[in-house]
C-alpha cells in the first residue's frame, strides 16, 4: 500500500520529466529536399579585379511558421553560413567562412516590413510587400575573399547553408521555457559548388 502511494506520483513525475527531456532535446525542423521546404537555391561565384564574390539564394524561406511568427510581431533572423574550402583527400581546407544575417520584422500597425542587413553596420529597408521583403532577405551577395589568396588552376568549393531563428519573445510568461518547448525554425542542408580559378 505504502509502495503504491509512493510510486504512483513518482511515475507521473518521471513521465513528466521524460516529456520535458524529450521536448528540450528535440532538434528544430531540418527540412529535406521537397518542393516547399527551404533550401539553398542558386549559388553563383563571380569576381572583380580584386575580390571573389558569392551570390546565394534561399528558396522557400518564408514558411508559414515564419510568416505567422512575423505577423505576431517577432523578428525572424535568417543566417547564411558561407565557407570557401580548398578540397583535399579527406577534409577540405577552409580558406574563409562568414555568417551573414538578415533580420525581417513586421509592423502590424503600419502594415510594413522592415529588413535589416547585418550583422555589422546594419542597414534597414522598409517594405510594404512581404514578397519584396523576401527578395531582400533571401538574396544575398557578399565578398568572400581576396583573389590573391586563390591559386590559378586550383579547384575550390563553396559551401552554403542557412537557417532561421526567431527573436526571443521576452514578454511571454515562462519565456525561457517556452523557447525550449518550441520547435521553431529550420536549417537547410549544406549546398556546395566547386569551381576552378
Amino acid at each position, binding site marked *: *500500500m*505504502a*509502495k503504491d*502511494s*509512493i510510486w*504512483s*506520483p*513518482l511515475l*507521473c*513525475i*518521471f513521465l*513528466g*520529466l521524460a*516529456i*520535458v527531456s524529450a*521536448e*528540450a*532535446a528535440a*532538434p*528544430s525542423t531540418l527540412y529535406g529536399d521537397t518542393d516547399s521546404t527551404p533550401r539553398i537555391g542558386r549559388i553563383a561565384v563571380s569576381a572583380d579585379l580584386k575580390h571573389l564574390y558569392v551570390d546565394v539564394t534561399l528558396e522557400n524561406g518564408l514558411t508559414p511558421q515564419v510568416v*505567422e*511568427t512575423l*505577423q*505576431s*510581431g*517577432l523578428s525572424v*533572423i535568417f543566417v547564411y553560413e558561407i565557407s570557401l574550402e580548398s578540397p583535399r583527400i579527406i577534409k577540405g581546407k577552409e580558406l574563409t567562412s562568414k555568417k551573414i544575417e538578415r533580420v525581417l520584422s513586421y*509592423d*502590424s*500597425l*503600419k*502594415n510594413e516590413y522592415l529588413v535589416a542587413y547585418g550583422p555589422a553596420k546594419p*542597414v*534597414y*529597408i*522598409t517594405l510594404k510587400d512581404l514578397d519584396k521583403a523576401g527578395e531582400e532577405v533571401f538574396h544575398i551577395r557578399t565578398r568572400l575573399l581576396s583573389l590573391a589568396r586563390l591559386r590559378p588552376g586550383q579547384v575550390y568549393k563553396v559551401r552554403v547553408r542557412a537557417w532561421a*531563428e*526567431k*527573436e*526571443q*519573445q*521576452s*514578454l*511571454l*510568461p*515562462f*519565456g*525561457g*521555457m*517556452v*523557447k*525550449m*518547448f*518550441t*520547435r*521553431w*525554425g529550420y536549417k537547410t542542408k549544406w549546398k556546395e559548388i566547386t569551381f576552378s580559378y
Partner: protein
Amino acid sequence: MNHPGKVDSTAAEQQRRKREKIVILCAIPLIIALSVVEYFLVPGRGPIPAGGSLAIFAIINVNILLILLLLFLIVRNLVKLIFEDRQNVLGAKLRTKMVIAFVSLSLLPTVTLFFVSYEFLKTSLNYWFDVKVERSLHNALIVGRTFYEERVSQLQATAQTAGRYTALKCITGNSTIDVPCVQQAFGSMTPIPGGGRGGEISIHSLELLSESGEKIYSKTWLPLVEDVPPIRQSIIEQAVKEQGPVVTGTRVDNGELIRALRPVRDERGEVIAILVLGNLIPSNLSQMLDDIRKGYEDYKQLKLFQNPMRAAVLVNLLLITLIILFFSIWLGFRLAKGITEPVQMLAEATYRVAQGDLDFSLKARGKDELSSLVKAFNTMTKDLKEARRRAMQASRDLQKSYQELEQRQRYIEIILQNVAAGVISIDAGGVVTTVNRSAERILGISAREVIGKPYQVILPPDQAEEFESIKNDLRSSSRGTLQRSIRLKRDGRDLFLIASFTQLKDQEGNPYGVVVVFDDMTELEKIQRMAAWREVARRIAHEVKNPLTPIQLSAERLRRKCMGELDDDLQGIFDRCTRTIITQTEELRRLVNEFSNFARMPAPRLRPVDLKEVLEEVVIMYKEGHPGIEFKFEADEVPKALFDQDQIKRAVINLLDNSVAATGEGGTIAVQVELDHQEETISISVSDTGTGVRPEDRDRLFEPYFSRKKDGTGLGLAIVSSIVSDHEGTITVKPNVPRGTVFTMTFPLKWDNGSKEERA
C-alpha cells in the same frame, strides 16, 4: 527480537553527515556543468538571455538530481524498512507506519493541488485565446491601422501637393531650388492645408533636403522640439527612387513624427531636392496605437506559443510539485526518524540494560517529551548503575565473608577429619549429619552410608535405646554434656570407647542436635591391663620367688638327713612328699621366672637385624627338636632393619611353641617373612596345621594368663603381643586353610642409616 548492539552512534552519524556534505558539494558543480552542457546542446538557441536558460536548466537539473536523490532515499529507506521489519528490528514497524502516513498525507494534497492548478491554468489559457478576445484585438488593430494609414495618406497627399507647388514655383532657372520661395510659401503657414482626400492635416515640420540628404532648409512647429531628427539615408535613397512620397515614422519626445518624403524634380525629371513634411501624432495617441499594436502582437505571440506555453506551465507545475513532494517525503522520513529513532534508541538501550550493560547514556536532543523520556531513562540508568555498584560491593563483601566462612568451615572440617577422636553429629531430628574420618576408622563404618540416615536405622535397637536414654539425660543435664564409656563389638572385636555427648543449641537455646566425640580406648585399656598384669607378675615373682629357695633347700635337706632314718613305709611317703615339694617348687620357680620375665620385659634395643638369618636359625633348631613335624621357612630378600633381635626371636619361639603344641606328629609348621615395599612393612607369619583357635578365644588370646593348655601359663602370647606393641607393630590371628592357625606379626620397616644407604 533482534537488537542491534550500538545505541550511541555518534561516530556513524558524523560520518553520514560528512558523506552527505560531499554529495552536496559534488552535486552543485554537477548541476552547473549539466546546465551549461544542456544549454549548448539544445538546438534552435536564439537571442534568448543565457542567464534565463541556464537558470531553467539548473532548475531542471536540480529537480532531476533531487528526484534521483529522492528515489535513492526512498528505495534505500524502503529496503531498509523492509529488511528491518523482517529482522524485527525495534521501531521498524512504527517507522513504516509513520512514513506511510506522512507520505500519504503529503502526497494527497500535493497531487490534488497539482491537478487543480493545472486545470485552473488550462482554463485560464483557454480564456486567453477566446475568439472574442482575438476579434476585439484584431478590430482594435484595424482601427489603429486605419487611423495611421489615414494620417499617412493625408500627409502623402499634402506632400504631393506641396511638392508639385514647389516644382512649379520655387525652381530657379539653373535647376536649383529657391529656398526663400519655399520659405515664403510654407514657412509662415500653420497648419499647411492639406490638398487631398482626407481633408486637412497639420504639418508640424518642414524640411528641404538635397538629393544626398543634406538639409537645405528646415522649420518645425513641434512643441518642445528644436529640431527634427535626421532621416536614414536608405529612406532618402528610397524616396529618390520612388515616384510617390515615401513615409517614415520617427519617435520623438512628444510623440511619433510621421514624415513624407516627396522628391522635387526639375523639368528634365532630375531630383533637385526632397521636400519632407512631418505630422506629429501626439504622445497619447501614439502610445495608444503602440498599445494596440503591442496588445495584438502579444496576443498573436501567445497564440503562436500556446502549446509550448502549456508545456512550460505543466513543467513548472511539475517542478514545483516535485519540490513539494521531495520536501514532504523527506520531511516525512525526517519526522518519522525523529520520533522512531529515540524510541528505537530507548528500546535498544532497554535491551542493553536488561543484558546488564549500564555504562552508556543516550543523547537527548531537543526539548520535547521524547527528550524528557530519554533524560529520564539516563537518570534511571545512572541510578541503576549506582544501585548495581552498591549491590556488587555488597556481593563482594558477602562473597568475601562467605569465602572466609567457607575457609573456616573447611578448616574445621580438616580438623574434624584429622582429629584422632571420632566425631559424629546428629541433628534435632535424629539424622546423622557428620561423621569424621576417625569415627569411620574406629567404628568401621562409611560416612557415606550413614550420613542422612536417622540413628534409629543405623544402630541396633538396644544401642538406639541406649542413645535415646543418653539424649534424655542430656536434656536434663544442666551442663549439656555427658561422658560415657561404651563397649562395642566390631567385627568380633571388643571396642572400648570413651564418649562425650554434647547437646547442640542454637542462638535461641533451642536443641539443634547432639555431637558425640569419642576416643578408642581399647589399646590404652590393653596397655593398662598389661601394665597391671606386669605389676601383678612382678609382685608375685617377688613375693613367691623368695620363699621357694628355702623351701626347696629345706626339702632337700630333709631328704638328705631324714630319708635314711625312716622305715620303709614312711620313707616311701617321705620320699614322695619331699620329691613333690622339690618338683613343685621347681615348677613354681619356673612359673615365677616366667612371671618375672613378663614383668621385667625391657624396652626393645633396636639394632640392624638380618631377620632371615635369625629366623632360619630358629626354624632349624625346631626342626632338629621335633623331627615328626615338617617345618618350612620362606623369606623374601629382607634388608637389615631395626629390631630387638632377642625379643623378635623370643616372640617367634613363643609362636612356634604354641604351634608345636597344637600340631601333632605329621603336621606342618611354616614360617614366612614378607617385605611390603609399598607399605614399607615386614610381616612374619607362623602358620600351622594344628587344632586351631576357637573364634571366641581370639580376642583373649593375647591377654596374660589366658590359656587353653593344661600346663600353659597364659603368658606366651601376651609376651608376643607385648613385643609386637613395643616394636609399634600389630599382630593378627586367623584360621589357616585348610586347618590350623596363622599368626601374623607386621612391623613398620625401620632402617638404620647404613642399611638405607646399602639398600639404595
